[in-house]
Protein backbone atom coordinates (compact mmCIF):
# COMPACT_ATOMS: atom_id res chain seq x y z
CA UNK A 1 0.00 0.00 0.00
CA UNK A 2 1.15 3.50 -0.79
CA UNK A 3 1.69 5.52 2.37
CA UNK A 4 -0.30 8.68 3.03
CA UNK A 5 1.88 11.69 3.61
CA UNK A 6 0.21 15.07 4.02
CA UNK A 7 1.97 18.26 5.03
CA UNK A 8 0.23 20.22 7.75
CA UNK A 9 -1.31 23.68 7.30
CA UNK A 10 -2.62 26.20 9.82
CA UNK A 11 -5.93 24.36 9.77
CA UNK A 12 -5.10 20.78 8.90
CA UNK A 13 -2.69 18.32 10.53
CA UNK A 14 0.43 16.62 9.28
CA UNK A 15 -0.43 13.02 8.46
CA UNK A 16 1.85 10.04 7.97
CA UNK A 17 0.25 6.65 7.54
CA UNK A 18 2.83 4.02 6.64
CA UNK A 19 1.48 0.52 6.09
CA UNK A 20 4.96 -1.04 5.84
CA UNK A 21 5.98 0.13 9.28
CA UNK A 22 2.54 0.04 10.83
CA UNK A 23 3.03 3.51 12.28
CA UNK A 24 0.32 6.14 11.79
CA UNK A 25 0.68 9.74 12.87
CA UNK A 26 -1.63 12.73 13.04
CA UNK A 27 0.02 15.86 14.32
CA UNK A 28 -0.65 19.61 14.58
CA UNK A 29 -3.91 21.50 14.19
CA UNK A 30 -7.14 20.05 12.92
CA UNK A 31 -9.67 22.85 12.63
CA UNK A 32 -10.95 22.85 9.03
CA UNK A 33 -14.52 23.96 8.29
CA UNK A 34 -15.04 20.86 6.24
CA UNK A 35 -13.35 18.09 8.14
CA UNK A 36 -15.06 15.24 6.27
CA UNK A 37 -13.30 16.31 3.08
CA UNK A 38 -9.95 16.06 4.85
CA UNK A 39 -10.53 12.82 6.76
CA UNK A 40 -12.44 10.73 4.24
CA UNK A 41 -9.31 9.67 2.31
CA UNK A 42 -7.70 8.63 5.59
CA UNK A 43 -10.68 6.56 6.64
CA UNK A 44 -10.85 4.95 3.18
CA UNK A 45 -7.13 4.18 3.32
CA UNK A 46 -7.62 2.48 6.69
CA UNK A 47 -10.34 0.35 5.14
CA UNK A 48 -7.71 -0.95 2.75
CA UNK A 49 -5.11 -1.45 5.48
CA UNK A 50 -7.68 -3.33 7.57
CA UNK A 51 -7.69 -6.13 4.98
CA UNK A 52 -4.08 -7.11 5.72
CA UNK A 53 -2.73 -5.19 8.69
CA UNK A 54 0.62 -5.76 10.37
CA UNK A 55 0.50 -7.74 13.59
CA UNK A 56 1.25 -4.52 15.41
CA UNK A 57 0.01 -1.03 14.56
CA UNK A 58 1.09 2.04 16.49
CA UNK A 59 -0.93 5.23 16.25
CA UNK A 60 0.42 8.56 17.46
CA UNK A 61 -2.02 11.41 17.86
CA UNK A 62 -0.30 14.64 18.73
CA UNK A 63 -2.77 17.46 18.24
CA UNK A 64 -2.45 21.01 19.44
CA UNK A 65 -6.02 21.97 18.58
CA UNK A 66 -8.95 20.20 17.02
CA UNK A 67 -12.47 21.41 16.37
CA UNK A 68 -15.67 19.52 17.10
CA UNK A 69 -16.24 18.58 13.48
CA UNK A 70 -12.78 16.95 13.39
CA UNK A 71 -13.63 15.16 16.62
CA UNK A 72 -16.23 13.07 14.80
CA UNK A 73 -13.83 12.28 11.98
CA UNK A 74 -11.13 11.28 14.43
CA UNK A 75 -13.66 8.94 16.00
CA UNK A 76 -14.19 7.39 12.55
CA UNK A 77 -10.43 6.82 12.31
CA UNK A 78 -10.46 5.15 15.72
CA UNK A 79 -13.41 2.96 14.74
CA UNK A 80 -11.35 1.52 11.88
CA UNK A 81 -8.52 0.86 14.30
CA UNK A 82 -10.94 -0.80 16.67
CA UNK A 83 -11.98 -3.18 13.89
CA UNK A 84 -8.32 -4.04 13.25
CA UNK A 85 -7.83 -4.66 16.96
CA UNK A 86 -10.96 -6.78 17.14
CA UNK A 87 -9.57 -9.00 14.38
CA UNK A 88 -6.82 -10.01 16.84
CA UNK A 89 -4.12 -7.60 15.78
CA UNK A 90 -2.20 -5.48 18.20
CA UNK A 91 -3.12 -1.80 18.06
CA UNK A 92 -1.73 0.85 20.37
CA UNK A 93 -2.81 4.48 20.48
CA UNK A 94 -0.50 7.08 21.98
CA UNK A 95 -2.47 10.23 22.77
CA UNK A 96 -0.12 13.16 23.36
CA UNK A 97 -1.05 16.25 25.34
CA UNK A 98 0.93 19.20 26.66
CA UNK A 99 1.39 19.21 30.39
CA UNK A 100 -1.01 22.06 31.16
CA UNK A 101 -3.60 21.02 28.58
CA UNK A 102 -6.26 19.23 30.59
CA UNK A 103 -8.79 19.70 27.81
CA UNK A 104 -6.63 17.67 25.42
CA UNK A 105 -6.12 14.97 28.06
CA UNK A 106 -9.89 14.82 28.64
CA UNK A 107 -10.49 14.58 24.90
CA UNK A 108 -8.19 11.55 24.78
CA UNK A 109 -10.03 10.01 27.70
CA UNK A 110 -13.33 10.51 25.88
CA UNK A 111 -12.06 8.41 22.98
CA UNK A 112 -10.54 5.86 25.31
CA UNK A 113 -13.95 5.35 26.92
CA UNK A 114 -15.72 4.94 23.57
CA UNK A 115 -13.20 2.89 21.60
CA UNK A 116 -12.02 -0.55 22.64
CA UNK A 117 -8.35 -0.16 21.82
CA UNK A 118 -5.54 0.31 24.36
CA UNK A 119 -4.73 4.01 24.81
CA UNK A 120 -1.65 5.48 26.38
CA UNK A 121 -1.85 9.11 27.53
CA UNK A 122 1.54 10.68 26.98
CA UNK A 123 2.32 14.00 28.63
CA UNK A 124 4.63 16.30 26.68
CA UNK A 125 6.85 18.17 29.10
CA UNK A 126 8.48 21.24 27.62
Amino acid at each position, binding site marked *: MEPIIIEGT*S*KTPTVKFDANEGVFEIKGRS*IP*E*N*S*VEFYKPLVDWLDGYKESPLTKTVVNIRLE*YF*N*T*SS*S*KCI*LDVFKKLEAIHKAKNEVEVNWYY*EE*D*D*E*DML*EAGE*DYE*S*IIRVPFKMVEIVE
Partner: protein
Amino acid sequence: MGFKIENYLNDQAKGDIILFYKGNIDSDVINQVLDTVEDKMVEVNEQSKLRKKVYNVLVESLQNLYHHVDKVPDDYEDQESERFGILQVKKIEKGYKIVTGNFVRNENIEKLEERIKRINRSSHEEIKELYKFILNHQKISQKGGGGLGLVDIARKTGNKLDYAFKEYNDHHSFFYLNILVNEEEQK
Protein backbone atom coordinates in the same frame (compact mmCIF):
# COMPACT_ATOMS: atom_id res chain seq x y z
CA MET B 1 -36.48 50.87 12.62
CA GLY B 2 -34.60 51.30 15.89
CA PHE B 3 -32.63 48.12 15.58
CA LYS B 4 -28.88 48.44 15.64
CA ILE B 5 -26.67 45.40 15.98
CA GLU B 6 -24.06 47.23 18.04
CA ASN B 7 -26.51 48.35 20.75
CA TYR B 8 -26.26 45.08 22.61
CA LEU B 9 -22.46 45.19 22.54
CA ASN B 10 -22.43 48.73 23.90
CA ASP B 11 -24.59 47.64 26.82
CA GLN B 12 -22.00 45.15 28.02
CA ALA B 13 -19.31 45.69 30.63
CA LYS B 14 -16.28 47.61 29.46
CA GLY B 15 -12.99 46.07 28.50
CA ASP B 16 -10.32 46.38 25.86
CA ILE B 17 -11.78 45.42 22.51
CA ILE B 18 -9.08 43.51 20.72
CA LEU B 19 -11.13 42.67 17.68
CA PHE B 20 -14.44 43.56 16.11
CA TYR B 21 -15.69 42.13 12.85
CA LYS B 22 -18.96 42.50 11.05
CA GLY B 23 -19.68 40.94 7.68
CA ASN B 24 -19.34 37.72 5.77
CA ILE B 25 -17.93 34.77 7.71
CA ASP B 26 -15.89 32.71 5.30
CA SER B 27 -12.88 30.50 5.68
CA ASP B 28 -10.37 33.32 5.09
CA VAL B 29 -12.03 35.58 7.64
CA ILE B 30 -11.88 32.77 10.19
CA ASN B 31 -8.15 32.31 9.50
CA GLN B 32 -7.46 35.99 9.88
CA VAL B 33 -9.42 36.33 13.10
CA LEU B 34 -7.69 33.31 14.63
CA ASP B 35 -4.25 34.60 13.63
CA THR B 36 -4.94 38.09 14.93
CA VAL B 37 -6.27 37.00 18.30
CA GLU B 38 -3.57 34.38 18.74
CA ASP B 39 -0.84 36.93 17.99
CA LYS B 40 -2.33 39.41 20.44
CA MET B 41 -2.47 36.83 23.20
CA VAL B 42 1.15 35.86 22.59
CA GLU B 43 2.09 39.55 22.58
CA VAL B 44 0.68 40.11 26.06
CA ASN B 45 2.18 36.83 27.28
CA GLU B 46 -1.16 35.25 28.13
CA GLN B 47 -0.79 31.98 30.04
CA SER B 48 -0.96 29.08 27.63
CA LYS B 49 -3.92 27.38 29.29
CA LEU B 50 -6.15 30.42 28.86
CA ARG B 51 -4.75 31.06 25.38
CA LYS B 52 -5.72 27.57 24.26
CA LYS B 53 -9.21 27.86 25.69
CA VAL B 54 -9.81 31.19 23.98
CA TYR B 55 -8.52 29.79 20.71
CA ASN B 56 -10.71 26.71 20.92
CA VAL B 57 -13.81 28.71 21.80
CA LEU B 58 -13.11 31.12 18.95
CA VAL B 59 -12.83 28.27 16.46
CA GLU B 60 -16.12 26.78 17.59
CA SER B 61 -18.04 30.05 17.74
CA LEU B 62 -16.83 31.17 14.30
CA GLN B 63 -17.53 27.80 12.75
CA ASN B 64 -20.98 27.81 14.36
CA LEU B 65 -21.61 31.02 12.45
CA TYR B 66 -20.08 29.55 9.31
CA HIS B 67 -22.30 26.46 9.40
CA HIS B 68 -25.55 27.71 10.92
CA VAL B 69 -26.42 31.35 10.21
CA ASP B 70 -29.75 32.08 8.58
CA LYS B 71 -29.95 34.42 5.62
CA VAL B 72 -30.13 38.14 6.39
CA PRO B 73 -33.56 39.82 6.16
CA ASP B 74 -34.34 41.32 2.73
CA ASP B 75 -34.23 44.89 4.01
CA TYR B 76 -30.98 44.59 5.95
CA GLU B 77 -28.15 46.85 4.76
CA ASP B 78 -25.70 44.03 4.07
CA GLN B 79 -27.13 41.86 1.28
CA GLU B 80 -23.73 40.85 -0.08
CA SER B 81 -22.69 38.54 2.73
CA GLU B 82 -23.64 34.97 2.21
CA ARG B 83 -23.04 34.21 5.88
CA PHE B 84 -23.48 37.41 7.81
CA GLY B 85 -22.27 37.54 11.39
CA ILE B 86 -20.51 39.69 13.93
CA LEU B 87 -17.74 38.96 16.36
CA GLN B 88 -16.25 40.92 19.19
CA VAL B 89 -13.34 39.78 21.31
CA LYS B 90 -12.72 41.73 24.46
CA LYS B 91 -10.02 41.44 27.09
CA ILE B 92 -11.44 41.74 30.57
CA GLU B 93 -9.72 41.56 33.94
CA LYS B 94 -9.41 37.81 34.33
CA GLY B 95 -10.03 36.53 30.86
CA TYR B 96 -11.83 37.21 27.62
CA LYS B 97 -15.35 37.88 26.40
CA ILE B 98 -16.26 36.57 23.00
CA VAL B 99 -19.56 37.76 21.56
CA THR B 100 -20.92 36.44 18.30
CA GLY B 101 -24.11 37.53 16.62
CA ASN B 102 -26.20 36.38 13.69
CA PHE B 103 -29.70 36.54 12.27
CA VAL B 104 -32.06 33.70 13.01
CA ARG B 105 -35.51 33.17 11.60
CA ASN B 106 -38.05 33.47 14.41
CA GLU B 107 -39.32 29.93 13.89
CA ASN B 108 -35.81 28.62 14.63
CA ILE B 109 -35.46 30.41 17.96
CA GLU B 110 -37.25 27.86 20.10
CA LYS B 111 -35.08 24.97 19.03
CA LEU B 112 -31.85 26.91 19.52
CA GLU B 113 -32.93 28.27 22.89
CA GLU B 114 -33.93 24.80 24.06
CA ARG B 115 -30.45 23.51 23.19
CA ILE B 116 -28.82 26.30 25.17
CA LYS B 117 -31.14 25.85 28.14
CA ARG B 118 -30.44 22.15 28.22
CA ILE B 119 -26.70 22.85 28.37
CA ASN B 120 -27.16 25.52 31.04
CA ARG B 121 -29.19 23.14 33.20
CA SER B 122 -26.43 20.55 33.11
CA SER B 123 -23.59 20.04 35.54
CA HIS B 124 -20.03 19.81 34.25
CA GLU B 125 -20.18 16.02 34.44
CA GLU B 126 -23.47 15.95 32.53
CA ILE B 127 -22.01 18.20 29.84
CA LYS B 128 -19.08 15.80 29.48
CA GLU B 129 -21.48 12.89 29.08
CA LEU B 130 -23.64 14.85 26.63
CA TYR B 131 -20.55 15.65 24.56
CA LYS B 132 -19.57 12.00 24.40
CA PHE B 133 -23.09 10.95 23.56
CA ILE B 134 -23.38 13.37 20.64
CA LEU B 135 -19.86 12.52 19.48
CA ASN B 136 -20.70 8.86 19.38
CA HIS B 137 -24.27 8.96 18.07
CA GLN B 138 -24.83 11.95 15.82
CA LYS B 139 -23.71 12.17 12.23
CA ILE B 140 -22.24 15.35 10.79
CA SER B 141 -25.14 17.36 9.37
CA GLN B 142 -25.63 18.46 5.78
CA LYS B 143 -24.45 21.90 6.79
CA GLY B 144 -21.24 20.37 8.08
CA GLY B 145 -21.80 21.05 11.75
CA GLY B 146 -21.40 18.32 14.27
CA GLY B 147 -23.95 19.62 16.77
CA LEU B 148 -21.17 19.76 19.31
CA GLY B 149 -20.07 23.38 19.13
CA LEU B 150 -22.15 24.84 21.96
CA VAL B 151 -21.60 21.82 24.18
CA ASP B 152 -17.86 22.12 23.62
CA ILE B 153 -17.87 25.83 24.43
CA ALA B 154 -19.73 25.21 27.70
CA ARG B 155 -17.44 22.34 28.57
CA LYS B 156 -14.19 24.15 27.88
CA THR B 157 -15.14 27.42 29.59
CA GLY B 158 -16.94 25.81 32.52
CA ASN B 159 -19.40 28.71 32.34
CA LYS B 160 -23.08 28.99 31.51
CA LEU B 161 -23.91 30.22 28.02
CA ASP B 162 -25.12 33.81 28.17
CA TYR B 163 -27.28 34.74 25.20
CA ALA B 164 -29.98 37.08 23.91
CA PHE B 165 -32.47 37.24 21.07
CA LYS B 166 -33.33 40.76 19.88
CA GLU B 167 -36.30 41.06 17.58
CA TYR B 168 -35.52 42.57 14.20
CA ASN B 169 -38.92 42.18 12.56
CA ASP B 170 -41.80 39.69 12.41
CA HIS B 171 -39.65 37.07 10.75
CA HIS B 172 -36.14 37.65 12.03
CA SER B 173 -34.28 38.16 15.26
CA PHE B 174 -30.65 38.74 16.02
CA PHE B 175 -29.02 36.14 18.21
CA TYR B 176 -26.12 37.04 20.49
CA LEU B 177 -23.95 34.48 22.18
CA ASN B 178 -21.90 36.06 24.94
CA ILE B 179 -19.11 33.75 26.05
CA LEU B 180 -16.90 34.22 29.08
CA VAL B 181 -13.53 32.49 29.01
CA ASN B 182 -11.79 33.06 32.29
CA GLU B 183 -8.79 31.79 34.17
CA GLU B 184 -10.64 30.06 36.96
CA GLU B 185 -12.83 27.36 35.53
CA GLN B 186 -15.64 26.17 37.71
CA LYS B 187 -15.97 22.45 37.69
